[in-house]
């Protein structure tokens, strides 16, 4: 136990925490944008799987990280396009569509990998290019802090910048205002001339791009290459983080960091002599517990408000 504690207090742990938070944070930001418009994007997991696969193969084939990323986003958006077509135009329940698309993506990614590379396990036969690591000038020389914050994959910095991006989009732009209006009261939004379907479409697309970047990080940063099932619930954890953060960017960032911390801790504990199965369930248990804590806190606050209102009315 003291081993664990002494490890957590190192700069190395802080570094690995930010690293494993990256895909969760992207997914969580993607969930915020979609959910704010009232269209749930359950297909985040599928977005990430396809993006990871397309990025791994795309960067290998084009020999360019940049084009690899573009192909990854395009791959992730295939899932978003299907979600938009079925969820918005054919009026399939959007949650059900998301579930169906995750099923489609989990088998579909293996199917495509086999068609392209004749391998059902991983893309090891192709040389995936990894996004570069960036040293932050100035910060890298600060002791401890520099070790934690500097030298990350460029996508990790993008993930943290996406928090600012989502905040700016939702609260400082006209589009963001429309997204929130549609999410809060679609009929009222329609009555003032906002096109509900287009707003939902745009927010699902943005959500898909964010999730795809998270998927690209997994195969072009966290690992170099795609292996089957590599997203393993990170999209869902992102969904939970957004729910915990009540769709506000900064609280969601904090929730994502908590899950990232649990994930990083499971990585360390794997090195200690704790059974593998227990180590692996830590992030998931943390997610469930976190979800319960926040939801109960929210209901408690609503109750308190109601009582206060009653008291003041009397």
């Amino acid at each position, binding site marked *: 136990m003291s081993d664990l504690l002494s490890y957590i207090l190192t700069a190395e742990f802080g570094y690995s925490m930010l690293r494993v938070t990256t895909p969760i944070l992207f997914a969580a930001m993607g969930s915020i944008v979609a959910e704010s418009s009232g269209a749930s994007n*359950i297909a985040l997991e599928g977005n990430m799987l396809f993006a990871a696969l397309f990025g791994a193969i795309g960067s290998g084939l084009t020999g360019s990280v940049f084009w690899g990323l573009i192909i990854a986003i395009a791959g992730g958006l295939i899932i978003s396009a*299907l979600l938009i077509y*079925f969820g918005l*135009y*054919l*009026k*399939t*329940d959007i*949650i*059900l*569509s998301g*579930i*169906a*698309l995750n*099923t*489609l*993506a*989990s*088998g*579909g990614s*293996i*199917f495509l990998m*086999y*068609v392209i590379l004749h391998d*059902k396990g991983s893309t090891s036969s192709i040389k995936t290019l990894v996004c570069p690591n960036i040293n932050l000038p100035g910060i890298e020389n600060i002791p401890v802090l520099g070790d934690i914050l500097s030298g990350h994959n460029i996508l990790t910095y993008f993930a943290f910048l996406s928090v600012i991006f989502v905040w700016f989009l939702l609260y400082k732009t006209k589009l963001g205002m429309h997204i929130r209006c549609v999410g809060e009261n679609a009929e009222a939004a329609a009555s003032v001339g906002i096109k509900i379907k287009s707003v939902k479409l745009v927010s699902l697309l943005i959500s898909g791009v964010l999730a795809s970047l998270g998927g690209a990080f997994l195969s072009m940063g966290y690992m170099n290459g795609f292996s089957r099932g590599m997203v393993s*619930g990170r999209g*869902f*954890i992102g*969904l*939970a983080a957004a*729910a915990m953060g009540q769709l506000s960017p900064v609280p969601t960032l904090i929730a994502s960091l908590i899950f990232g911390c649990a994930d990083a801790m499971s990585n360390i504990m794997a090195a200690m002599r704790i*059974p593998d*199965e*227990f180590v*692996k*369930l830590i992030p*998931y*248990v943390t*997610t*469930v517990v976190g*979800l*319960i804590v*926040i*939801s*109960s806190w*929210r*209901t408690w606050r609503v109750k308190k408000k109601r009582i206060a209102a009653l008291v003041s009315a009397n």
Partner: protein
Amino acid sequence: MINKKKLSFDTKFELMRFTVAILIAIGLSFVTILIVSHEPLLALRKLFLGPVESFRRFGNVVELAITLSFAGLAVAIMFSANQFNMGAEGAFFASAGVAAMFSLALPLPPVLAPLFAIIVGGITGAIICVIPAWIKMKWGASELVSSLMLNYVFYYLTKYFAFTKFKDPNCGFVGTFKIPEAAKLAKIVPHTRIHAGLIILVFVVIATIFFMKKTRWGYNLIQTGQNPHFAKYVGINTGIVIAYSQIVGGFVAGMGGAVEVLGMYNRFQWKELPGYGFDGIVVAIMAKNKPQYVPLAAFFLAYLRIGADKMATATDVTSEMISIIQGVIIMLVAAQAFLSHRRQKMLVKEVSKNV
């Protein structure tokens, strides 16, 4: 009179729409195979005729249909309450493991052994599936997210107990000790592996139809699923309805897991989540949550699956193609606006015919 006409028209339209959706899905697999395969004719033949090439293979379809029926029934019951509970996936895995461990830990005489193992499996499933509903009722957290997370939790927990406490060191792969013969479900059709689970399934289907249609509990469940506000207004305690629907659904999923391991395997040896929870969703959607259609839908999916397996072993097309088809089927069958312009035309024709 008018009401009756309208109803029959709706049924007719629904049937037409369902058929078109399935045909599109099959057409999609047709096109996919033509694009990716070097031997498309062989692949197509294996996919669509592979399962009936021999009696044994057709047996495989029935075996899989038993499992998928349990999964479909479980999901149909849980989704009837309008709850997106994904717990059936974890329930299937965990109760298969628990049933195997139970029969190893407590050897019982024949008949009693499988009976108790299946009941224990069912209880395991019920507990797993009610937790997300309980969390939602008590704290308001989304059942979808919590059940997906809990699936991983129960997956790792089951793996830990099965493969440490009950691991057979003499087995060539990772698995528990052999399940005692007394606990296994007997094979009932010679030259196949079709097992007594089929008889259990028939009882469960009949019981579920009875539960949904003839009991007050089933009536309240359907009311709650269709319109929770109305249900509350007429005095149904929707919280309790949601809870027992997830318990019953979870129990069926748990039975399915137990039946699968006792009927088809010598030991518990699953390494990954089997995906039956998600297959159950396809089955339930195709059956429109109606238990009487579940075995049919399960049979259809099992046929495609076995066909895909035969195709994968004989040709260069992998069986994962079916997941794509499955996803499309779910979305098309559940699409409210799919072919809605056709509906208008059909309605006009129908009315003018009657005038």
